[in-house]
């Protein structure tokens, strides 16, 4: 399989380069015609914030990795980029790399849940732009299968691996659902806004925003269909909130031990989650000692993230096993593409000789005898060809040894003169 490809990712280039080289969907639709025109008969382009990948089947023997790199660099000229920022792949290695990407084990965050959808989208764009045929379609199907199997059969995507997701996991371990809960987000800056959006997406029952500049709180509240309360008196309402997320840029704590103590007393033991995602912290850390209050800051949430990352790393061998299985399947199928026509030519070759010889004796024997000889020669040819056919098919279907398949096919073609289309060859033999 002569697929070739290049990648630039978090292992090969700093974030500035990756960001600069990132191709939007619009840019992908612009670069694909160039690739089609100059380099590949079929292929795909994947570009995310962490990687840009271009893979395809060369239109001619002259196409190499450098051509692909140059085309990308010409399309998106970036200062400071060089060939060391690219990794190049060919054939088996290329397919394996694509599978690794789709399964998430090549991602910056191992088991990244977004990547499979991004890979699917990349293949879909190629399909829409007629940049795929049967071979690339089969690679696309196998890639998506690998991604799905990795998720369903291993724990590669399990557990929270970002601080915000870890915070959600902790809250989910306290409350059965978000629908009946009320949350307060303190701080309407970028982090606070993200937290508020996240809570809204999770279906929080009641969301309230507070901020030193009240208008900012009001704006965010309006955007998210939430309530806003004044910063000066938000502490009077603390007992009404099951979840409090604080993300202000205050230089010193804004919520003290006594505030939470009073809040918990009014809640009569009802549990509360306090998420301090501000740096420096917004809560007095002593609040973690108060009964019923679950206080977490960024460091404590990172404990969850680190544990889950270790667990995901342990799952990599299981994902690699799936990748290997699917590579065997893919190359098994691919090998038969070469073998099946050869087998057909091989059988046609013998059949042609048989029918030719039968034609020669047709008028020398009776009809009964002719039929008997015809049947006997058919059986004979069938038995002679049985083992070579089965063995060649078997070698091809194992998938891993495609070099052996190619060698065997070539020997067969050369020995029996099947090289330049069996039919043509037979005609030459006939003339001789």
């Amino acid at each position, binding site marked *: 399989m002569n697929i070739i490809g290049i990648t630039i990712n978090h292992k090969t280039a700093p974030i500035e380069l990756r960001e600069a080289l990132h191709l939007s969907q619009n840019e992908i639709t612009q670069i694909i015609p160039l690739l089609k025109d100059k380099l590949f008969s079929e292929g795909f382009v994947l570009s995310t914030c962490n990687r840009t990948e271009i893979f395809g089947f060369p239109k001619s023997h002259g196409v190499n990795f450098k051509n692909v790199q140059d085309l990308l660099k010409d399309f998106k000229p970036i200062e400071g980029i060089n060939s060391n920022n690219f990794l190049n792949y060919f054939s088996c290695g290329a397919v394996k790399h694509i599978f690794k990407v789709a399964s998430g084990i090549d991602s910056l965050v191992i088991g990244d849940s977004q990547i499979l959808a991004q890979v699917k989208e990349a293949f879909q764009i190629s399909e829409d732009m007629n940049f795929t045929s049967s071979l690339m379609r089969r690679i696309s199907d196998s890639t998506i299968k690998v991604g799905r199997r990795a998720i369903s059969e291993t724990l590669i995507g399990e557990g929270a691996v970002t601080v915000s997701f870890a915070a959600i996991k902790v809250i989910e371990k306290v409350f*059965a659902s978000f629908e009946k809960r009320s949350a307060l987000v303190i701080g309407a800056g970028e982090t606070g806004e993200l937290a508020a959006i996240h809570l809204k997406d999770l279906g929080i029952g009641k969301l309230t925003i507070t901020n030193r500049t009240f208008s900012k709180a009001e704006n965010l509240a309006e955007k998210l269909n939430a309530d806003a309360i004044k910063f000066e008196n938000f502490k009077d309402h603390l007992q009404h909130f099951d979840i409090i997320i604080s993300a202000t840029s205050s230089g010193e704590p804004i919520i003290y031990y006594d505030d939470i103590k009073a809040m918990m007393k009014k*809640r*009569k033991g*009802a*549990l509360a989650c306090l998420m301090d995602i501000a740096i420096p912290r917004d809560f007095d850390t002593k609040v973690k000692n108060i*009964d*019923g209050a679950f206080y977490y800051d960024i460091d404590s949430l990172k404990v969850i993230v680190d*544990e889950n990352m270790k667990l995901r790393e342990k799952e990599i061998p299981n994902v690699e096993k799936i990748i290997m299985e699917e590579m065997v399947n893919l190359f098994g199928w691919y090998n038969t593409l070469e073998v099946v026509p050869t087998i057909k030519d091989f059988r046609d070759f013998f059949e042609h000789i048989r029918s030719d010889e039968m034609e020669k004796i047709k008028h020398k024997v009776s009809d009964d005898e002719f039929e008997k000889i015809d049947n006997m020669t058919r059986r004979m040819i069938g038995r002679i060809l049985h083992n070579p056919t089965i063995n060649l098919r078997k070698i091809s279907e194992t998938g891993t040894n495609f070099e052996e398949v190619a060698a065997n096919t070539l020997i067969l073609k050369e020995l029996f003169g099947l090289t330049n289309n069996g039919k043509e060859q037979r005609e030459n033999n006939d003339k001789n």
Partner: protein
Amino acid sequence: MIDSIHIHNVVIPFLYLITFVVYVYDFVKDKPMLNNAKRVFLFITLILHTFYLLSRTIEFDHPPITNKFEIFTVLAFALSFSYFILELLTDVRGTGLFIIAFSIVLQIASSLFIEDLVEVKTILRSNLLGIHVISAMLGYSGITISAVYGILFLMLYKRMKSNEFGLIFKRLPNLESLEKLSFIAAIIGYVLLTISILIGGMWLPNAFPDFSYFDPKLISTFIVWVVYTIGIITKLTGNLYGKRIIVFNLSGFALAIVSLILTTFITNTFHSFY
């Protein structure tokens, strides 16, 4: 039938053990495949246990409540059965091992020492006594399960407070669900205990000439009942939540167990049949 009873007597502890192992394995490994399979194991165990209890009742002509080891097998059944119903109702599946463990201990003790008593005291053949004892057993199962969920709540609570996010954090249901499960089990236990107390109150004065309302067992049972009544009312009226109600519940359970042990083994009571 007697041979079947003897075979079941040997097989049932193993069935509980196998079910327990499946629940433990699923708790540790969290395999989706085992999620339903473990429920099937428990269901089969309970079906065979039901058959065993019915067989004993028919063969020996009395409900299996005439001695400690018969009571143990009824308790083992009642605990797992109550858990099974709770699992079906709430679909919280990760806590079975903590309940089935009790059933294993009780069933092993029962299977080892149970005898084929054919002759029993006349008083133990009473139908009212049967209902009284069985409702009491189910009631105690309810409050035991409630206490187990209470302990699980405290385990998870403690780990979350100390930033330990291991197996307990990953596999146990959330604190709100554990509190709810504990409360539902307590309510079921409380209702059944109330039925048992009411039936006992009606039947005991007629059945025992030396009956006294000041019997230590009656007083201690009444105190336990009052404690649970206060706890349930407090929770229902919204005056106590979270860890506080769990601690209250566990105190009630501890009181129930201590009073049961004291009145059974230490004090003199008419309320002792074995």
